């Protein structure tokens, strides 16, 4: 090429189409590189379905057979677990080391469209959540224990893909506040207790039942339960659970953005 044509004398205005393309390019490559990372893709895409089949179908036992709603509830609980993982780990555990590595600083110096770096991570997490839901639905349909119609499954998928956002915000908060070494550990400290204490699928002792409301997973499960209409297991009004999830996005997302804006 003729190098004399390289520099552009004045920074040209960026058409809106190109700005949107920049957002999409960031999201595409974020998803692509996470798909290429076996340590991320396998636990969050391949593992949830077998776990569901083992604990939510095979080991659910007679009590579930007598109580038809339980199979549905277990499926919803495992689906919540499946979407939580990529959101929490995909955002938090990648953000922290990239922050350590100076990548955010580079992105701030480059003319990256506002928020594109974080939006890409959120979209990636939602993409993974959608893939995980597909594997869960295939597994559940094969096992034949759920009573949902196809429309209900589509609605559930949409809800849970959107429901990944509060966990993205939590992950972002962790990634913005902890080092790359500490973030995966801290994320596990949030993720693992939340699966159990959020009351997703294991019956909790009475004294812990009161405290399920502090776990975002419980609120997402309650919204999901409302969407598929298992009213027997509706403990909170879905609007309230939804409001809590929105609050989590605002609070943790806001705190993380504030931290990132200050320290990069």
């Amino acid at each position, binding site marked *: 090429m003729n190098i004399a044509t390289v520099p552009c004398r004045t920074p040209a205005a960026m058409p809106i189409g190109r700005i949107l393309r920049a957002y999409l390019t960031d999201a595409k490559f974020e998803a692509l590189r996470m798909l290429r990372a076996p340590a991320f893709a396998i636990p969050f895409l391949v593992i949830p379905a077998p776990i569901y089949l083992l604990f939510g179908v095979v080991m659910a036992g007679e009590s579930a057979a007598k109580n038809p709603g339980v199979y549905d509830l277990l499926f919803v609980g495992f689906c919540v677990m499946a979407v939580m993982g990529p959101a929490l780990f995909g955002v938090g555990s990648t953000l922290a080391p990239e922050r350590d590595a100076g990548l955010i600083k580079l992105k701030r110096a480059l003319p990256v469209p506002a928020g594109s770096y974080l939006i890409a991570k959120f979209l990636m997490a939602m993409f993974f959540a959608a893939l995980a839901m597909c594997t869960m639905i295939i597994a559940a349909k094969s096992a034949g224990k759920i009573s949902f119609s196809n429309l209900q499954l589509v609605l559930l998928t949409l809800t849970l893909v959107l429901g990944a956002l509060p966990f993205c915000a939590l992950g972002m908060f962790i990634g913005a506040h902890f080092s790359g070494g500490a973030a995966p550990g801290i994320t596990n400290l949030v993720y693992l207790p939340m699966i159990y204490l959020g009351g997703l699928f294991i019956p909790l002792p009475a004294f812990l039942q009161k405290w399920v409301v502090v776990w975002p997973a419980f609120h997402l499960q309650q919204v999901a339960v409302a969407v598929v209409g298992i009213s027997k297991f509706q403990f909170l009004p879905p609007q309230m659970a939804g*409001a809590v999830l929105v609050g989590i996005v605002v609070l943790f997302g806001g705190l993380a953005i504030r931290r990132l804006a200050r320290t990069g």
Partner: protein
Amino acid sequence: MASQERFHSLDAVRAFALLLGVALHASMSFVPGMLPGIWATVDATPSVALGQLFFVTHIFRMALFFVIAGFFARLLYTRAGAQGFWINRIKRIAVPLIVGWCVLFPAYAWVASWGMSQFAGKIPAALSQLKPPPGFFPFMHLWFLYMLLLVYPTVLLLRGALVAIDRRGAVRALVDRSAQLLLGTPAAIVLAPIVLGAPLALTLYTRATWVYWGGVPAQDMTYYPQLPAMVGFGTAMIVGWILHRRIELLRTFENFWLPHLVVALTATLYCCSVAGTTFSFVPPSMGPAKALFAVGYVVAMWSWIFAILGLGLKFCAGESRVRRYVADSSYWLYLAHLPVVAAFDIVVRTWPVHWSVKFAFVLAASFSLLFASYHLLVRPTFIGEWLNSRKYPRHRRGALAARTMPTEPANAATAVAQLTGVTRRYGKLTALDDITLDLRRGELMALLGPNGAGKTSAIALWLGLAEPDCGQATLLAGSPLAVATRRGIGVMMQDVTLPNGMKVRELIEQTASYYANPMSVSDALSIARITELAGRYYDKLSGGQKRQVQFALAICGRPEVLFLDEPSVGMDVAAREHLWTAIRQLRDAGCSILLTTHYLEEAEMLADRVIVLAKGRVVASGSVAEVRSLVSRRQIRCDSALPANELAHWPGVVTVSRADQRLTILATDAETVLRRLLASDHRVANIEVQQAGLAEAFVELTKEAA
């Protein structure tokens, strides 16, 4: 302490009083003994602790607000005059009262009816049959605005009358002296709360319907002025007004905040013990007990006011961005909070968890929502301008750009990046000290300096990664903080690890997508001479290859200005040669380039101009030859048997080194050293004398600066 600093602290105290009001209302549903119908809901888990928080906060919060209001009222009055004062008050108090009520009353009424629907049949008959007072108007929490509008004219009328009567100023001098005696001496600790509180104590005592838990009866249900509120808050405003007249009195509060706090806590403890832990709606009978309580109540009120003013003055005196933001937002937050807080109180009412979790949730949720609404709907809009007399543009970066951009850069025609009088500090370390630098169009400028000289800080300012503490940073005649400006730059930073799992081609495609008119991926690969690396994963490349990829990323947007921070670190000789060639070609094509490097030969080979930094200051600037000539050193090389350590002691010799027979002498006075050398060693041979290189000049210049 400068008076301006004091205003920051008073701003903070006002914000504290307002935000405390949000917490006060949030706690109302948890107060033991609270009846349905007083507040939007009554929680299923009452809390003695929150009941006491409510009771104690209620003692002083609004009076504290009125003291500050009085202080700022006089400030405004003296600055803007009577007309300006009223125009401002109409805009900031009357209009928010009217508009706010029209919006908030329906909202709160709706929320309250939702809350009360859960208490159907449980509302006490006495409460539902209560007759509205004469002049009934449900001001809700906005009564304080109405109160201000009642108290301002009263205070100004009093002032006007005083000025009319007291033409010689004798009465005002007496007021000042009394204020000095009462508030400016240690007497303030015990005497002032009693004296200032006496009128209120008297009105409270004589009011037959006064209930201990109700505090100073609010002006929230009627537009007829209520005596206790007028007396209590009127006194508070007058005290604030006098404090602005005699601003030095504030120092007393600053010094005596602890004794005031002790008195406040003691009096509060007494009041709490009398009032009990349950909200009582039964008025006490007249008698010494009621009188004593009224005195205790006003002593607690004024002692809290003095203690909090003192704490604010002592600990919140300086300017803080966070406090400023909160202070700006507090007015909106307080205006808008009531329906929000009430709604969340209703939401948590039956949650089967401890009250502390519910209360924390109500506060967190309300404040999140209110701050978000402030940030998005108020701060950047006309509402913020209306409420706080200031509008902040939505994008902080843009705002700063407008604020820090010069109207016309001094040499805008030639400079593409400028730092003008810039100081940048990191804690106690001054990284850049009043520095002025410019990168001219089409030149390659090398920025040199030892570690910690300020090179990276200078680049960070140009890239918008940091903001100057003083001075201006300009990039392409705009602000480095604006994305649009940065579309004209390319950057290769030190110590950046690009994400794993991406191929070189993909990285370039991604970076190119940020620019309006980028080059193709294959062109970027070809200029950086890494076409063969296109399909390889970045994280599998060697250190030198990674730097080559980063160079391709820096140029792929066809930048007008290129920042290269230590570009050739880790490259082998061939790669470095290629890099230099590409850099020269870019420069020749009109790209302006800023290069920092530790390889001085790199700067010597490439730079049109060299800037040497040391300790955050420019110690030398000019072409390579000019900088070299700043140092009057020359290098003498010769074959000689003279011992190097002996030569090192000769006058004019800086350093001596020997390699076999060959001596290398760096000298400040080369002629004298040469003469002595020829005299001392007749067999000296192969003498070469040359001007010191950039490396020697650099060492000398930066050593002098140290």
